[in-house]
């Protein structure tokens, strides 16, 4: 690990003032310390956010507010979250391990870096880590990589399960920079890699995520997260689906759906949603709608199976939540 200056400011304004392109904020540290040991990240200044008051899990009139420093485990087991947005609880509980969920913050979860082996190995090229150096994954080990949103520069998946659930629920995050604040939809926050895969989101240097806001959606009580992976637990997704259903008898009145493990960012599926609206709750509806998920998909040498897998993930999530045999 490279030497750094450690600071623990007491207000968000102080924290933001210490932020820069060469600094890193630390909350749980589960991504940052790991990547600093690998020298993938080499901040000269580490600003500890834990003294800040960015906490609280509150059900408000217009929806759910989660302070950015809340831990994954605390959000997952919060009764209001589990009751009103089971998809959030389930996405969190299917992430990482009990220890990591006790450490990692909600803000940090949304900013975690890809698990691409080339990104994590400083002895190999990687356009995300060193712009312009190349992408060995395109012709190399790419079984875990993305089929959606890829470019000639980068095919790495976004690893967060929580982000998939939040994008499906049309959540926003509040950002603070100096005394300026802005609210941005999470779906607009994440960027496609294009030819600048080092830029993963719209966060400015020194800018801080202070809270997550999830709009009120009464029918999100009927929601779920389905994660398909190589091991039953403690593994990243090969494919996953965040789903909420509003049912009118055996017809679908409304739906929200996003997928993970297959995209370079959390992948919202408005066309799959449209294909479900007003349709009967059955296998034919689900299979027809799921086909819209792979529009523009580009399989690599080892991950062609994800074309089928993501559709099956969607169909199974719909069958489970819709209680269709």
């Amino acid at each position, binding site marked *: 690990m490279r*030497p750094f200056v450690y600071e623990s400011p007491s207000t968000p304004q102080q924290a933001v003032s210490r932020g820069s392109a060469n600094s890193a904020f*630390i909350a*749980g540290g*589960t991504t940052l310390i*790991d990547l600093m040991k690998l020298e993938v990240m080499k901040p000269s200044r580490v600003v500890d956010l834990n003294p800040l008051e960015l906490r609280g899990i509150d059900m408000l009139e217009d929806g759910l507010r989660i302070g950015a420093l809340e831990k994954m485990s605390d959000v997952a087991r919060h009764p209001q979250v589990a009751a009103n947005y089971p998809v959030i609880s389930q996405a969190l509980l299917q992430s990482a391990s*009990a*220890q990591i969920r*006790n450490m990692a913050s909600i803000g940090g979860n949304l900013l975690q870096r890809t698990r691409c082996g080339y990104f994590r190995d400083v002895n190999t090229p990687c356009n995300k880590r060193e712009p312009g150096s190349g992408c060995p994954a395109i012709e190399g080990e790419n079984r875990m990589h993305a089929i959606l949103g890829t470019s000639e520069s980068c095919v790495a998946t976004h690893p967060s399960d929580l982000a998939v659930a939040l994008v499906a629920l049309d959540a926003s995050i509040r950002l603070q920079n100096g005394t300026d604040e802005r609210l941005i939809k999470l779906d607009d926050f994440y960027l496609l890699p294009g030819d600048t895969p080092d830029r993963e989101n719209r966060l400015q240097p020194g800018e801080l995520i202070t809270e997550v806001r999830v709009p009120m959606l009464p029918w999100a009580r009927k929601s779920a997260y389905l994660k398909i992976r190589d091991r039953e637990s403690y593994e990243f997704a090969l494919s996953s689906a965040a789903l909420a259903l509003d049912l009118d008898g055996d017809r679908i009145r409304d739906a929200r759906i996003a997928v993970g493990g297959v995209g370079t960012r959390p992948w919202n599926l408005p066309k799959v949603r449209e294909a479900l609206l007003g349709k009967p709750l059955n296998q034919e509806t689900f299979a027809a709608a799921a086909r819209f998920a792979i529009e523009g998909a580009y399989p690599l040498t080892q991950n062609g199976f994800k074309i089928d897998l993501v559709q099956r993930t969607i169909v199974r999530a719909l069958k489970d939540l819709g209680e269709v045999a």
Partner: protein
Amino acid sequence: MQGKSEDQIEPPADSGPDRDGFSSRREFIRSLAAISAGLTVAAPLGRAADLTERSIPKSAPPDPNGIQGWTEIKLQVNGNTERLVVDPRVTLLDALRDRLELPGTKKGCDHGACGACTVHLNGRRVLSCLTLAVMAQGKEVTTIEGLAKNDELHPVQAAFIECDGFQCGYCTPGQIMSAVACINEGHTGSDREIREFMSGNLCRCGAYPNIVDAIKIAALKMKGGAS
């Protein structure tokens, strides 16, 4: 496994001072630490955590903007207040093992993937390899050394022995710390639930069935007030 673990290495053959005048490996390493602390320019910063001396003189005045280089911190470990001098890069794991002479907590992957380094911070299980020592200040740290009450084993420790919940034993301190938290969190409703909530602790010997048995037995005892 990175670096040498003190407890993996054979102790010196004779208990008396050897020909170099160092009576134990620890004492020898401590003397090395004192030497490198004196040679501040040559201090191996990248291997700061390898030093074992608790109190090393500061090599530079404190940075007004933050902590840089050697800094004295205070940790509450197993009920004791420990003062030690660390670089901000030192993880809680390295501070415990190499500075505070508590090598029960194990270094497995050192990247948060195996759970061998699990300790409790304010009663919650966390990974000490991904925790900076400076960030553990003001919190209660509990390690495997702090579980037993005098000579009386913690019910989870006793159950691991009873059920043969280990083979080589390297993952065991992390398994036990994680298991204590798993029981306290109430995640022992079924074998499946135990396996899910213990999935962050890998055992390459594959003692998993016996670990699950040990947790079930310990959970019953702890509910009965035996803890």
